[in-house]
């Protein structure tokens, strides 16, 4: 494959996930010359190969993450499992995401003004509202207008919501008695055919792979971008951005291809879209005499304020069938407590449709077979229920992504260092989520209980905050249009620009900002 640079490129985009793919598609469609550099491969061919890799032990992970290319360090109080949290490849982390999509709430954009914590965004919900609608169309979101706690919207969802599960109906009895409201949840997953993709056929393996193509991946936008004339170069690892003598503009992206050759891709505009960790790493690797602390980092904020969502969960077993693991997505949530102020951290509750083990996966790990195995599976499957929750983590300067100069990848570049911990306020919000979950499980009479709270929590794999958006160049990396304060032609697309992260899965907001960024960038091209 020809991996040499494109001549006369208007726009060079680094990263072929949703943040890069949407921008590439929009700009290519408008007539711009676009090149996308993606560090990972194209995963062509039948997705059922990845399905088997997921289900059967011994075949390795489905998306080839974790080799020397992906080395990292984790230095904070809490270990951060970075390579479980991302995918490098055309499609990016949407290759393995679950596909839950919802809008941030109005308060998420005004947390400092309203509550004196976190930061305000330089834009509000109303600014993003039309772009949210566009993002829902881009994904083909299946949803319903039954959520009384959702922010205002004007238009229907593109697709009807998935109907509630049998498991939801069990929870509904208890929640009704407790005054806890359940409602549907947005899914970037086809409930009907959409955009040339299949409806869901129930493989049950949404995360990490949807063999039918019902779940949105950014491969859709990359494909559309290429159809509109964009060039996408896979396995092109961008290692440095080069700027002009004045330090005002990026002039080239230096990338290395599998044959060991290093190329320079010149362009008029550059968009970083390689995630909340690699965006930072590339900016820091691009230090120079003019920018000794890294590119676009005169604020010192590049890499700071790393945030993720935290998981809280609780579950157990009932004395009746709960019908889990037929599908790999959820059909009901509760956003009733999201805007509460004590604690102020946002939280949302999930009613899981995949509680407990899957018999086939258990069987493949069992140390017996025959009737013994059947008896084990008969006992282990069938009566589990569980609730999950995502909890907001507020931005803290001492949670950061940096470079580990002591450790290099297979190209000799310093690896990213994740320094992450969970603060007491977030722990209080996790406890609050557990308290609500416990009330529901008590009401249901759930036994054999377990919970995941402050002591056991882990990240939800949403990398946010590390190139924060703001009006003040002294304290933020990009402006309200997602353009770097320091360099006129450098844009950053993705959740790294979030000043705060709320407690909603971030990809719909990533898409909305990407649509908006594409619009702003297009205007600069003339």
């Amino acid at each position, binding site marked *: 494959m020809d991996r040499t640079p494109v001549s006369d490129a208007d726009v060079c985009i680094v990263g072929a996930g949703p943040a890069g793919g949407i921008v590439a598609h929009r700009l290519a469609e408008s007539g711009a010359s676009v090149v996308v550099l993606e560090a990972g491969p194209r995963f062509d061919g039948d997705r059922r190969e990845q*399905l088997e890799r997921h289900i059967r032990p011994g075949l390795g992970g489905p998306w080839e993450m974790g080799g020397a290319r992906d080395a990292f360090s984790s230095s904070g109080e809490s270990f951060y499992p970075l390579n479980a949290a991302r995918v490098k490849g055309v499609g990016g982390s949407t290759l393995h995401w679950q596909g839950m999509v919802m809008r941030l709430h109005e308060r998420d954009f005004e947390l400092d003004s309203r509550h004196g914590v976190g930061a305000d965004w330089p834009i509000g919900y109303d600014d993003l509202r039309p772009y949210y609608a566009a993002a829902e169309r881009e994904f083909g979101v299946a949803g319903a207008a039954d959520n009384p706690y959702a922010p205002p919207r004007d238009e*229907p969802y593109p697709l009807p919501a998935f109907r509630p599960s049998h498991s939801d109906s069990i*929870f509904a009895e208890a929640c009704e008695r407790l005054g806890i409201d359940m409602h549907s949840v947005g899914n970037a997953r086809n409930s009907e055919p959409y955009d040339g993709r299949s409806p869901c056929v129930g493989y049950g*393996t949404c995360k990490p792979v949807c063999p039918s193509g019902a779940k949105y991946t950014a491969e859709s936008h990359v494909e559309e971008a290429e159809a509109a004339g964009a060039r996408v170069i896979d396995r092109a690892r961008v290692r440095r951005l080069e700027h002009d003598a004045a330090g005002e503009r990026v002039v080239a992206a230096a990338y290395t291809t599998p044959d060991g050759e290093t190329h320079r891709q010149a362009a008029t505009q550059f968009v970083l879209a390689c995630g909340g960790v690699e965006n930072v790493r590339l900016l820091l690797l691009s230090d120079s005499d003019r920018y000794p602390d890294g590119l676009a980092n005169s604020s010192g904020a590049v890499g700071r304020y790393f945030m993720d969502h935290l998981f809280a969960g609780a579950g157990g077993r009932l004395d009746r069938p709960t*019908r889990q693991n037929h599908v790999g997505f959820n059909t009901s949530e509760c956003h009733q407590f999201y805007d509460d102020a004590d604690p102020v951290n946002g939280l949302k509750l999930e009613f899981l449709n995949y509680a407990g083990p899957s018999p086939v996966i258990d069987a493949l790990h069992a140390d017996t077979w025959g009737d013994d195995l059947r008896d084990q599976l008969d006992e282990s499957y069938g009566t589990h229920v569980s609730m999950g929750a995502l909890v907001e983590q507020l931005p803290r300067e001492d949670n950061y992504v940096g470079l580990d100069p002591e450790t290099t990848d297979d190209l000799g570049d310093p690896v990213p260092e994740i320094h992450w911990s969970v603060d007491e306020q977030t722990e209080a919000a996790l406890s609050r989520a557990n308290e609500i979950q416990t009330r529901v499980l008590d009401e249901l009479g759930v036994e054999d209980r377990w919970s995941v709270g402050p002591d056991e929590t882990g990240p939800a794999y949403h990398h946010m905050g590390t190139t924060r958006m703001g009006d003040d160049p002294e304290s933020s990396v990009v402006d309200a249009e997602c353009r770097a304060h320091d360099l006129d032609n450098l844009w950053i697309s993705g959740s790294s620009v979030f000043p705060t992260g709320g407690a909603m899965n971030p990809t719909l907001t990533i898409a909305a900002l990407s649509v908006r960024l594409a619009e702003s960038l297009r205007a600069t091209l003339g």
Partner: protein
Amino acid sequence: MRLTRRDALAVLAGLGVTGGAVSLTQFDPPTADSTGEGSGSDGDLGGGGDDDTPPTAVRETMVAAGEVVYPSAVEGIPEFVETYVVGRARDDARRDAMVDAATELDGVARDWENAAFADLPAGDRDRLLRELGVNTADPVPDGTLSERLRFHVVNELLYAFYASPTGGRLVGIENPIGHPGGTESYRRATMDGGETAESGGTADSGGESDG
């Protein structure tokens, strides 16, 4: 409980094994009750004189292993396993490794027990596999003998069984993960139907504004 060729075809369809006379329509909206028989398909995977078809001795060894790793109440194992093995052998690399592993297992049986694996009583087959440590071995496609037997023989057979609707039903799930069994089963109260969920997220007002 009786396994059929259709059960094997359903699992193969989930793995993308189609072709020849097989035209499983796994992306047509299915149901958890469908077992992989696509429209216009006679489910013929070949197997008679096909160059891809594993040797008879290998198929017999796999069937004999299936009779050990599947629950005792299961009937129809030979037809199910043969269909699955023949379909699986369409992947050259997988066929060669499976043939090698089964041949090695048969060789061990002949060395230790002076009989083909398939000719041993079921109890002796079970004991032999356990003595080889296959029950506790990690499944590794190119690992030690025990690891390869776990991957290419035992786990291949267990996957075929428990990812099929019929095998799943035996332990309470007619639409196991890996099987494209549609989006109705998750709403049912029981495997045989029962009331369909109507509460939870109401999800019945799609297309309207909540604004």
